[in-house]
């Protein structure tokens, strides 16, 4: 990622999006109107909205990383994840609701990558809200056609002998990629392993961090 020269960065290092200090837009006005009307009519409450936003903010890729690290260290869990990932992850407290979760495993011979060409379906309960690129025209259009070129843009180059399998998330399934456990991590704890699991490695656009990376034990 290029270095960002903005002066005002959020804690995550991204620029804040225009909000309170920019002129009120037509669509922001509509959000306020719909929200107020729904509250006045008793359809929803302000507390429910606040609570929903808290849930949204609490969902980060750390959830998915915990699932991956457990799959790397607990063969029974790994089997349960392959059998029914919705049930296996719900037991860890990550309820996917009415959707179905499918975990797809990377191996030396197979690399999985997830896209939604029709909209932007994403396993929010495990990874949080999707990044902008996941919703972009370029990612949605090209990933099913030229996944290797797309991966190269993310800095990932795989040998021709590794099959790439693109998962187009077209219905009520959600996918999480279980990346291959990095070499050189024998004996590592689940918590230490989870630090190696990046968001992109669980979408398939990245690989886990190397145990030698400077921030591997951050």
């Amino acid at each position, binding site marked *: 990622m290029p270095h960002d020269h903005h002066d005002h960065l959020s804690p995550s290092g991204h620029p804040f999006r225009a909000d309170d200090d920019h002129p009120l837009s037509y669509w922001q006005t509509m959000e306020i109107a719909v929200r107020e009307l729904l509250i006045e009519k008793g359809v929803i409450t302000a507390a429910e909205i606040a609570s929903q936003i808290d849930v949204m903010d609490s969902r980060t890729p750390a959830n998915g990383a915990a699932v991956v690290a457990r799959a790397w260290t607990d063969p029974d869990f790994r089997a349960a994840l392959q059998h029914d990932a919705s049930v296996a992850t719900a037991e860890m407290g990550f309820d996917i609701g009415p959707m179905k979760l499918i975990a797809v495993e990377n191996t030396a011979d197979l690399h999985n990558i997830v896209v939604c060409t029709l909209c932007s379906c994403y396993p929010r309960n495990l990874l949080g809200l999707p990044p902008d690129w996941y919703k972009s025209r370029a990612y949605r259009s090209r990933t099913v*056609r030229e*996944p290797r070129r797309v991966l190269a843009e993310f800095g990932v180059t795989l040998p021709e002998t590794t*099959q790439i*399998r*693109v*998962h*187009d998330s077209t*219905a009520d*399934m959600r996918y999480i990629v279980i990346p291959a456990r990095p070499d050189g991590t024998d004996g590592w704890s689940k918590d230490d392993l989870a630090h190696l699991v990046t968001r992109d490695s669980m979408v398939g656009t990245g690989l886990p961090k190397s145990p030698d990376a400077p921030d591997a034990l951050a």
Partner: protein
Amino acid sequence: MGSRVRVRNDMPPGHIRTPAYLRGKSGVIERTLGPFANPEQLAYRHNGEALALHRVRFTMAEVWGAAAETPTDTIEAEIYAHWLEPADAA
């Protein structure tokens, strides 16, 4: 599992969850899920008919022909049962 199927090559109007790039293409059923309510009816505020949802695996060669980036790479997508027919059908 393993049945060869072909995605119908229809181009209907409205809300459809079968991607156009897979219509008319043949693949193999990887697993069957569901039943799920038909989203093509749910989208219009009707009750959705219960349908099986098949995960179908396609090769890049099948989907993109000679233009495929790596012909043996694969794509999997979820296709509702009414969009699939046996691959040997005319």
